[in-house]
């Protein structure tokens, strides 16, 4: 460390804390932050109010009487059609879709990216171009052909079918992500491992994987949020008993029968958004690191 026992004041000239510039910058930031936080605030307070209080119409007023009844109802009692199990069934459906989709898509995409980056097989460039092209094809074009395809193989309406669809649609962007990351790993490392007698899988598991935690986290976040928030595929490729949480949320919120229970709707919406939110909070730092390491370099 530097010895700071030197005499006299040092370092740059101190800035005034309440300079006009700071007031302007922080003022703007606070206003923008409030603008984004306000809806969340309204959602949270509404979800803990009772219906009589909501009917008074003052959406910004804090709750007089806090009740968690709407949360319980949203989770386990709210009705969609004949079914009155609340969101919980959708939650577990989403989990059952999410976990295999994320694992399978990342496993395949990372091997794809590794092969494209390090084992320059014949036609690798053509293969890669086709794969990237896949990222630009609009979902709507593929929707119906996939329905037919799944029907023909007997997977239409099943969770397995949906998992396969998620895996395929995640492939282009994830492969690109992994390929770019593995390209940024020095080639000599790969050569050294080959001289050391490691094969395709040996290098993948023992050399590449241990160096690639950040990019796996990025891929995981992309897939978890993407698949969790998916509505279209969920509603098209499954049937009501397998609907993911997003579809069920829609059905609860948009149900036309009876009274609009705003507090229950708010609670249900927050519950549905909780999973991506938690993922971001836990792995935010790694996410930034991975983006910086993998996605920028081409």
């Amino acid at each position, binding site marked *: 460390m530097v010895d700071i026992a030197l005499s006299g004041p040092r370092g740059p000239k101190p800035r005034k804390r309440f300079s006009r510039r700071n007031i302007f910058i922080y003022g703007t930031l606070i206003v923008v932050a409030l603008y984004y936080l306000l809806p969340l605030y309204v959602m949270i307070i509404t979800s803990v109010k009772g219906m009589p209080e909501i009917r008074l119409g003052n959406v910004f007023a804090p709750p007089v009487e806090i009740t968690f009844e709407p949360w319980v109802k949203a989770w386990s009692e709210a009705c969609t059609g004949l079914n009155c199990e609340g969101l919980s069934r959708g939650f577990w459906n989403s989990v059952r879709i999410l976990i295999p989709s994320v694992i399978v898509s990342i496993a395949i995409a990372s091997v794809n990216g590794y092969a494209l980056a390090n084992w320059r097989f014949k036609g690798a460039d053509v293969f890669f171009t086709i794969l990237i092209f896949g990222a630009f094809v609009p979902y709507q074009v593929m929707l119906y052909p996939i329905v037919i395809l799944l029907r023909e193989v007997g997977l239409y309406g099943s969770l397995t079918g949906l998992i396969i669809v998620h895996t395929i649609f995640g492939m282009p962007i994830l492969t690109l992500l992994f390929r770019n990351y593995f390209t940024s790993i*020095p080639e*000599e*490392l790969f*050569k*050294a*491992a*080959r*001289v*050391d*007698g*490691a094969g395709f899988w*040996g290098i993948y598991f*023992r*050399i590449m994987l*241990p*160096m690639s935690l950040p990019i796996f986290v990025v891929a995981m976040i992309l897939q978890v949020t993407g698949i969790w928030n998916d509505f279209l595929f969920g509603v098209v490729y499954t049937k009501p008993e397998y609907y993911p949480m997003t579809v069920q949320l829609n059905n609860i919120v948009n149900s036309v029968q009876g009274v609009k229970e705003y507090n229950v709707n708010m609670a249900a919406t927050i519950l549905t958004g909780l999973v991506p939110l938690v993922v971001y909070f836990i792995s935010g730092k790694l996410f930034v690191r991975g983006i910086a390491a993998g996605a920028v370099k081409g």
Partner: protein
Amino acid sequence: MSSISIKDLKLNFGAVEVLKDLTIDVAEGEFLVLLGPSGCGKSTLLNCIAGLLDVSDGQIFINDKNVTWEEPKDRGIGMVFQSYALYPQMTVEGNLSFGLKNAGLSKSDIAQRIKRASEILQIEPLLKRKPAALSGGQRQRVAIGRALVRDVDVFLFDEPLSNLDAKLRSELRVEIKRLHARLENTMIYVTHDQIEALTLADRIAVMKGGIIQQLADPRTIYNKPTNLFVAGFIGSPSMSFLDGSLSGGVFQAGDLSIPLAGYDGDASGTLSKVKLGLRPEHIAVSTNATPGSVPAIVDVEEPMGSDSLLWVSLGGQPVSVRIEPEVRHPRGSEVYLSLDIPKASVFDMETEQRL
């Protein structure tokens, strides 16, 4: 018996010919240096020998076995890279044992080999550390150790010292030479640094444009460069060239005429365009005219510590001369140069070959 033998090796990247019909034989225990400017194909050739690049045509033999299409691990080679290429997530010990585990050696064998290699390279205290906790010199030692534990006959070095600072580089250079003397393995060493090449090599292959320009021992390369490129590339400070013509064994440039008596080669012909190459240490300077000397005008002086480099104008063309550091010649003064013609080189400018 030759340790490595390369026959008519060709490598094309698309339409670009990177290596053109290379043929080299490396004797057992020989230290061969591949030297050349960047892009000359020297690292590419090394990668072909290692099996990291597929060749387009030709054959490679290691210990008389055709390994042209063998995997790197089956070729009996160890390789050291410029960027060290240590596996960052493993300790030094893990790095050393990785290849041995892949080869299926027993634990006791592995331990024994690591012990021997780490003794030779003096890296025993580092075995439990990760590469990130090592200095550049230590990392390169470990990288050499990784080749050493493989217990192979052939070592391949791909610019192993280029990432190190000057002092460390000269230290490790001596160490590699010592290692070679001790192990007596065949070593192929790629570098663009001619000092490394001249100090380490039994033979040097000077490469340019995917072709070996000259393959010879360092003294021959230095004293009798086969063509203009080799002459200009080897030697620091480099050789001076005088443009002129040749007739009846006399070199002529303007008013200057230098008889090439005692020239090591055939300079008896008559050629309209030749270059006379002179190394700085093969010219002597004196302030008085001596028989056979030629007059020149002093331009500038470059002190280099152990000696100085004096730039003079000889018949209007710049020539550098190595002189004692104590001797001073004022700018613009007239001096007389005695040329050591038996050590000079004359190049035909038509072919750029040495006469």
